[in-house]
């Protein structure tokens, strides 16, 4: 066999491998994207078209009406003012919860790696443990705690005329998500800071920087990749959470998006408006999609960095 045919068969093998890999990738991509595609096309169709046409076909007369209706008019339970209020509810909950849990996680990671104290491994171990506690098992204890916080808020109302946020369902959800997220954010930051050079902290100490000055001026500015990872992770989890949301703010004014969406779909008056439901679901998914697109390239990079160094 000559060298030429050898290399030709080598090329051929590589070619077949490529085709197989890309073929599989494309197949799975289609599989994963199919539901999204159906949701998107349905949300632009009229009800007539949905009832008479094919689920996969493109809309004949694309319309934005379902989107407007979902945003401003559709019924959630008994109130028919669209999902816009609940969208803001979710944002009001997610932004503080993500910010607080990320900052606290960074502080924890900073202390656990750069200001080690006797027993720091035990503390970290316990925090890690928090990552494995199932949601369901904290539901009732947490409800009790939130109940006492609510009574405390009531007492404050009587004494000084305001609750200071105690007992407010949005505040409650922020507290729950911060506590539940702390294990994860601490894990992320601790592993990142473990590989962060100690000498930088020492140099800053000699330079006269205090504990918080080092954190703010040296640690945080050099933590972008892990901050992005943490924010994406926390944002997606908290935004998509249904269990805590329905348990602690399942009805009334402060209901988050996920619970509202469920109520939209379950509203049983008249025909089921698939196009409006799909549009509402798309709106509900929008923020997480946006966060991924904006920060996604850091996500992969950040995960890699953590994996290799941590």
């Amino acid at each position, binding site marked *: 066999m000559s060298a030429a045919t050898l290399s030709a068969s080598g090329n051929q093998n590589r070619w077949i491998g490529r085709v197989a890999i890309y073929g599989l990738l494309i197949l799975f991509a289609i599989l994963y994207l199919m539901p999204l595609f159906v949701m998107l096309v349905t949300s632009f169709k009229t009800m007539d078209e949905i009832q008479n046409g094919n689920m996969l076909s493109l809309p004949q007369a694309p319309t934005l009406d379902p989107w407007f209706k979902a945003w401003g008019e559709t019924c959630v339970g008994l109130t028919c003012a669209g999902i816009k209020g609940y969208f803001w509810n979710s944002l009001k909950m997610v932004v503080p919860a993500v910010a607080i849990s990320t900052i606290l996680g960074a502080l924890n990671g900073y202390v656990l790696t750069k200001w080690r104290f006797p027993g720091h491994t035990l503390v970290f171990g316990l925090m890690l443990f928090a990552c494995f506690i199932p949601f369901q098992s904290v539901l009732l204890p947490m409800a009790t705690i939130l109940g006492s916080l609510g009574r405390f808020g009531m007492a404050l109302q009587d004494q000084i005329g305001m609750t200071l946020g105690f007992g407010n369902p949005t505040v409650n959800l922020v507290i729950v998500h911060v506590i539940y997220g702390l294990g994860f954010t601490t894990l992320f930051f601790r592993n990142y800071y473990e590989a962060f050079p100690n*000498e930088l902290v*020492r*140099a800053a100490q*000699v*330079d006269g920087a205090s504990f918080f000055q080092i954190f703010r001026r040296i640690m945080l500015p050099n933590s972008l990749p892990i901050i992005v990872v943490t924010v994406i992770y926390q944002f997606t989890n908290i935004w998509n959470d249904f269990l805590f949301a329905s348990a602690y703010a399942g009805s009334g004014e402060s209901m988050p998006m996920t619970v509202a969406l469920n109520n939209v779909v379950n509203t049983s008056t008249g025909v089921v408006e698939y196009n409006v439901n799909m549009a509402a679901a798309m709106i509900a998914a929008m923020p997480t999609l946006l966060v991924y697109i904006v920060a996604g390239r850091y996500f992969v990079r950040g995960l890699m960095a953590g994996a290799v160094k941590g």
Partner: protein
Amino acid sequence: MAFLHISGLRKRYGALEILKGIDIELEKGGFLVLVGPSGCGKSTLLNTIAGLETITEGDIKVDERSIAGLHPSKRDIAMVFQSYALYPNMTVAGNIAFGMEMRGVPADERKQAIDKVAKVLQIGHLLDRKPSQLSGGQRQRVAMGRALVRDPKLFLFDEPLSNLDAKLRVDMRTEIKRLHQTTGKTIVYVTHDQIEAMTLATKIAVMKEGIVQQFGTPAEIYNNPANMFVADFMGSPAMNLLSGRITRADDGLAVALERAGGEAIRLPVAAAQAALAQYENRDVVFGIRPEALTDPEGADRNASALAENDCLIEVVEPAGSDTFAVTKLGGREVVARLRADARIRAGEMARLAFNLDKAVFFDPQTQARIA
């Protein structure tokens, strides 16, 4: 009075003792170099002076005042780290100014100080760059700048040149020496390069396993090593350490060394007869530096005790300025340093002059110096 005074310093991590009683006194304007093999505790000692590690026992005084309990920022020290430890998120100017900023120095004063230091270190054109955009030598200078700008009582350097290539290293060494001479600051400097130690120091502390083996001027350390470890560690090529036997003849004590290609060499012992007398008919370690073992023409004219002997040359290594010859004495390879144009050839006998003024003797068991 000593400016830096370390007394009875011990450092333990749990049961593990890293520093085992360090005593050092350094005068004002002195340049103390800590040398020793990797892991002997040099960085740990430096960090205790900086306050980055707590001390288990003992005390550190600067200018008659104990600094042992003070926070690093209150000790009036500046430190250059082995890895430079430049803040990656700040520009060069930001790095240099950070310490002043933390101490509340007004912005215009900071600017002046930066410009002054930048001029000395020739980094004026780099001030707006980030550390990642600098070469190794430039980073090193920025790290020095960050320390220099502060005008502290004490400078601490932890192997600042170890990451540089050979050429740059020599340049920066000269730079540091000049800096010390012009500013007259007190410096403690860690290295495990003994040439750096010899050229820079006014005092050297040779450490091993958390103990100072010898503390003295470079000349003392080089010419009068306190034990075999110091003798072997300082100097390049290292001192020849060979086993010999003390014998008595009519003309006094002598040391006998086995020689390849002939009977043993007997070298009369010039000084310290008393100390060596106790070792009569016992083995000792005979130490002689390569430059004290040379061709008769190149030998030191002022030496009071020269002995010439024929030795079988095994290898000849011309090194430009000198020629190194390897022979075998006392069962060990011995390096002699000859003039560049000395006429010797491998495999032949050659006449070598032993400068016995410079010879030292050690006890083979305790490794301590006898004479």
